[in-house]
């Protein structure tokens, strides 16, 4: 039990993610979290206006159940299976974030500087969350997948399009953190 309550190392996590991908294939489905965004748009009636959302979303209900499970899993892991502990970030990361004006680095899963309600109700804070979310939602459909669909499933099945997409993910991330963050903070 003690091992479960501690943070899990990468070499446990990675193989478990591969098993999750494999199980979904075994169940005749595929691992893709961002597809649910399209499904939710369709449920919301987007199909009436836009062709892209005109599909049988009921065939995707299984994936929404995966999402429901993921939310429950997040609750269980956070409230029942975790000793309160700081995220074991590298010294350099803590130093860099302190320089950006972040305090209490790693004491919660998400930084209060971006996700506390004070931050959400500030102009800059809400813009960061909205622009970030928008880019993820737009980019993932444009690229035809996200981390689960491209980085894990696509790379595991040695698909070139997924490799290109993952290179794009990293290029975008590096531009954001190294070039844009220093302007924002």
């Amino acid at each position: 039990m003690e091992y479960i309550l501690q943070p899990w190392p990468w070499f446990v996590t990675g193989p478990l993610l591969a098993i999750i991908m494999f199980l979904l294939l075994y169940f005749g489905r595929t691992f893709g979290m961002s597809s649910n965004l399209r499904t939710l748009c369709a449920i919301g009636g987007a199909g009436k206006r836009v062709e892209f959302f005109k599909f049988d979303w009921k065939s995707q209900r299984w994936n929404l159940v995966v999402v429901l499970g993921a939310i429950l899993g997040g609750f269980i892991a956070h409230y029942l299976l975790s000793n309160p502990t700081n995220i074991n970030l590298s010294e350099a990361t803590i130093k860099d974030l302190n320089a950006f004006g972040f305090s209490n680095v790693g004491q919660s899963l998400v930084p209060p500087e971006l996700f506390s309600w004070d931050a959400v109700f500030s102009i800059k804070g809400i813009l960061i969350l909205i622009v970030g979310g928008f880019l993820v939602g737009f980019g993932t459909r444009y690229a035809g997948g996200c981390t689960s669909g491209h980085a894990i499933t696509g790379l595991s099945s040695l698909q070139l399009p997924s490799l290109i997409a993952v290179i794009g993910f990293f290029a975008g991330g590096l531009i954001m953190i190294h070039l844009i963050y220093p302007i924002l903070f």
Partner: protein
Amino acid sequence: MGKYLKFLTVGMVFGIVLVKSEAVSWYRIFEMFKFQSFHMYGIIGSAVITGIILLLVSKKIKIKNIEGSFLRVPLKDRGFIRYILGGIIFGLGWALCGACPGPMYILIGTGAFSILVVIAAALLGTYVYGLTKDKLPH
């Protein structure tokens, strides 16, 4: 409901694994893009290596899925522009709010409810993609 139980279970394991490994943490994503820790690279790398082995073995020993057909990963369409441009746009957002779609949902469970703003914006982004799809280079 019975047939959905296995998907609920897989989802729960997914949520638990990503919280316990801290991969849902904005801090870990920041650290990854700063190349200051091996943690996230280890997770993605070992997931891909295990995934490659699982898929090769299942092909070799001809595993069938529960519907009776051979295990098959859907093939992505050929192309370049959409993958690189879409990828870069996704990456910019991923680094900005520190969450890709899986962790977005999982974070709700951890009580970080402001992630709902990010999810709403992601839905809008998906909608705008659907709206502009035919005008974009793919």
